């Protein structure tokens, strides 16, 4: 039975008037409707009476006061109280239909490229980081409350009504397989640190299409019920690639994705996952931070080379071997500054992040181009609005104004203003 009827109009606390258009779905805490305010469409989450607690309302009103951490969040923006005062709901932006659930990614019904996948992973990490910067913890990072556009890796984070600061009693403890071990065992509540664990689980799942703690120990369990999950993810978690404990290695035939993907990713990604699921299992302070993930994921995204067979490969310092056809590819020249690195191949772009170290991986400031007078020569064209300085190995400096290009040559450097990068 739907709580709200099509065509009913509800006034909000901020004076908005929302007409119920249709029901979009239902969950454990309430139902979600599409609503219209003067033709503008929004989503309305309407709580069941048992979930419509004064505490929940306080949380929502606080979230509205704080405002969305960034544009990836479908953030509460208005509150509607039922006419009899028994329940309430909150208004948030509507999710566009081309966004797909993470279940589609896991079931291979949504197939992003590696590039789009890296961008999605980066954007999610940045989103949760902004949330944490605002003093909040998300509390339930998992498949069910995320969406991605498989074409470009845009992401959306919903169900933000559980996000709260540490002084507020949690409304949700999380989702099995994603909760930090200390929550599963009942010794901790959701916090920024437990979010970091869940984020690592989410990233591992997205990149490897597998769970980091499901190896032989999982295979040996016949009935995967609550006690079994408590053991695997709570009291006795073992990383499938723990270098010091081989008890839970992935089993061929059961955990093939873990075996296929582990070698596809470069050492830095494997190192971070190893720390997240060994030292980070029971020592929250050793968990991988958002900044570490952002650096690694940005470098991952800009390290992709495409093999002649069409496969995307991640290229580190050594010539990569194609996971699909076995061919060994040459390593292109890369532009390196501080922690960031971008491979310079035909059509590659340099973003604000590479020039300014600001984690903006979408704003293009340069493009790899061929010299029109001599197509054998390649350069990076300045697509920004400021002059760059090209520094030769002998120290000679040349100005590179917008529209002009700097030749790609090992040992040469480009001073972008914020950062100085070197061709390696």
């Amino acid at each position: 039975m739907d709580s709200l009827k099509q065509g009913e109009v509800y006034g909000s606390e901020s004076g908005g008037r929302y007409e119920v258009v249709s029901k979009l779905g239902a969950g454990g805490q309430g139902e979600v409707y599409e609503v219209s305010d003067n033709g503008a469409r929004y989503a309305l989450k309407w709580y069941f009476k048992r979930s419509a607690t004064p505490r929940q309302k306080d949380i929502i009103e606080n979230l509205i006061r704080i405002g969305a951490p960034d544009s990836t969040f479908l953030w509460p923006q208005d509150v509607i109280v039922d006419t009899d005062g028994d329940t309430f709901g909150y208004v948030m932006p509507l999710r566009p239909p081309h966004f797909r659930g993470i279940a589609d990614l896991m079931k291979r019904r949504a197939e992003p490229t590696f590039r789009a996948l890296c961008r999605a992973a980066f954007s999610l990490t940045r989103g949760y980081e902004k949330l944490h910067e605002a003093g909040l913890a998300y509390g339930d990072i998992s498949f069910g409350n995320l969406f991605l556009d498989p074409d470009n890796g845009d992401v959306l984070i919903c169900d933000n009504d559980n996000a709260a600061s540490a002084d507020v009693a949690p409304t949700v403890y999380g989702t099995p397989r994603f909760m930090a071990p200390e929550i599963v065992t009942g010794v901790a509540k959701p916090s920024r640190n437990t979010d970091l664990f869940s984020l690592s689980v989410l990233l591992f799942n997205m990149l490897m299409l597998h769970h980091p703690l499901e190896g032989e120990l999982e295979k040996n369990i016949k009935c995967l019920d609550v006690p079994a999950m408590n053991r695997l993810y709570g009291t006795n978690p073992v990383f499938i690639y723990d270098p010091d404990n081989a008890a839970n290695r992935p089993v061929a035939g059961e955990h093939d994705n873990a075996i296929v993907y582990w070698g596809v990713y470069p050492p830095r990604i494997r190192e971070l996952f190893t720390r997240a699921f060994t030292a980070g299992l029971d020592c929250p302070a050793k968990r991988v931070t958002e900044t570490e993930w952002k650096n690694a994921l940005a470098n991952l995204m800009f390290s992709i080379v495409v093999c002649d067979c069409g496969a995307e490969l991640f290229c580190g310092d050594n010539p990569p071997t194609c996971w699909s056809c076995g061919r060994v590819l040459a390593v292109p020249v890369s532009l390196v500054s501080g922690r960031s690195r971008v491979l310079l191949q035909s059509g590659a772009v340099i973003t604000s992040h590479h020039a300014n170290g600001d984690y903006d991986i979408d704003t293009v400031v340069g493009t790899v181009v061929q010299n029109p007078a001599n197509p054998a020569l390649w350069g990076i064209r300045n697509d920004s609005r400021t002059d760059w300085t090209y520094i030769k190995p002998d120290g000679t400096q040349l100005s590179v104004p917008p529209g002009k290009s700097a030749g790609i040559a090992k040992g040469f450097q480009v001073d972008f203003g914020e950062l100085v990068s070197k061709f390696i």
Partner: protein
Amino acid sequence: MAELKRPGGELSNRPLHFIWVVDCSGSMLGEKIGTVNHAIQNTIPEMLDAANNNPYAKLLVRTLKFSTGAKWVTDKPTDIDDFSWSDLDAEGVTDLGAALELLSGELTIPPMSDRALPPVIVLLSDGMPTDDYKSALAKLLSLPWGKKAVKIAIAIGRDADTDVLREFTCDKQLVLEAKNREMLVKMIKWASTAASVVSAPVLNAENSAPDAESVPSITPVLGLSSEGDVW
């Protein structure tokens, strides 16, 4: 050049067996069986939707009916994608024991796989057993998969033997008493959501008490039914 798909397959999953066990004795004739047929058929699109959003489980559904004797309506565990409801008729007595015997046969390894999510068995009955169900129930509950299965019973009307149903579910909270048609529909819908809850139980901080007016919040109820061992 077209980019090649990323390697590997989908996330590995486990089978989740969901079994409707329906009392088709003569007393179910008329409105009761009509409501059951209609209500279960209506759960299928929602179960399919939930399964599509659940990467952890491969949901396999089948139906077992019992009256004078018992019979599988669906021959084999059937992917929810391919499952369609066949209307059941009502005639005969209430041979619950015969149904439990058939269940035991299917919850033995093999034919049951050795790795799965907990099976969900939903038993609907409006009367009391006419055969010797005791030994059949003891056998079912002695099987590891019988023990681990989440067993839900819906008592239809006022003549259902709730004591027997309680023996089956091993948990008072999982015997739902459908005193009228509206409650029956609601409880069938509730039971159908057990599949997604079993494979990915959500832990709410507040275990809200079952609401007598409607149906209990399913998660805490199912959480209580799990035993402490790992098998």
